[in-house]
């Protein structure tokens, strides 16, 4: 049994589309990660009572 990689003509034809979609998904993951980091560090997800307590010192 051979495990040789078969390069189908379809792969070549769709390569730009596949690479584009792949990069878009990676960018989306990075954006969601970045947003989460910013929101967590700013305390956006803290309950209101905790936030008021922190603000009052």
């Amino acid at each position, binding site marked *: 049994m051979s495990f040789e990689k078969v390069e189908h003509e379809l792969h070549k034809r769709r390569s*730009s*589309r596949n*690479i*584009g979609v792949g990069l878009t998904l990676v960018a989306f993951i990075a*954006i969601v990660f*970045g*947003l989460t980091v*910013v929101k967590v560090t*700013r305390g956006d997800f803290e309950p209101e009572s905790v936030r008021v307590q922190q603000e009052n010192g």
Partner: protein
Amino acid sequence: MSDASLHTPTQTGEAGFGDYFALLKPRVMSLVVFTAMVGLLAAPGGVHPFIAFCAVLFIAVGGGASGALNMWWDADIDAVMKRTTSRPIPSGKVAPGEAMAIGLTLSVFAVIMLGLASNWVAAGLLAFTIFFYAVIYTMWLKRWTPQNIVIGGAAGAFPPMIGWAVVTGGISLESVLMFMLIFMWTPPHFWALALFMKSDYKEAGVPMLTVTHGRKVTRAHILVYTILLAPLAIGTGLTSIGGPIYMVTAVVLNALFLWGAYKIWRRPEEAAKADMYRSEKSFFGLSLLYLFLHFGAILAEAALKPYGLGGW
């Protein structure tokens, strides 16, 4: 639907990533990005730079999604008009159903992501903008009234208002004035283009003012809208987003714009034909500079404020 619907596009060839990106009308998106960014930076207060970046990105994606929906609905018109035959759907690279699916998916995605990243007022405004452009303008007004450009221009005028709402969570006089600036600028800008770009609107069944009411009436409309635009643009300079830089820019540009509109109104069609529409072309060029410099001046005022230089 017009007779243009006889030209149903059929899919040929394989679409690359660039063809799907072209569905989002990247050139229109660049204006959306710039004006949304100015609205966001001019707003009082501030947001984290990464949230600002994401907000502008989602506003651009939302604008692009409405562009894809526009291309899906207008595929029959685009197949008739020379200027638009190379678009992804009429050229057969992307199927109409695909464009619709991309448009709808990205619309929902952009609105939800903007809501999560900033606030739901901004997200609601983005949702309304997409609805306005795709349904009110594209599906309804565009093929029905020669005032299509006037009312449809509102869709392009919302981005600075959304940018402002990202920071403030609301609407204010300043954001309404930025909206009005683009709204009132759109008709003279497009009608000047329609005067020298002999497009195939008639064949496509699109009631452009130049076709339905003639070129003389279009010239008068350009002048009227330019007269209405001037006090609005200068008046914006008296609010919190204005300042000396904006005021000088607005006074000079509006004087030039009014002079250009007056020249267009005064001259007969024969004279325009004789010099290959020189005044109309230079007015159109000035209109691009007009909007860019007005928003550039608002941006300059906002950028100088932290140093005690911007604003009044």
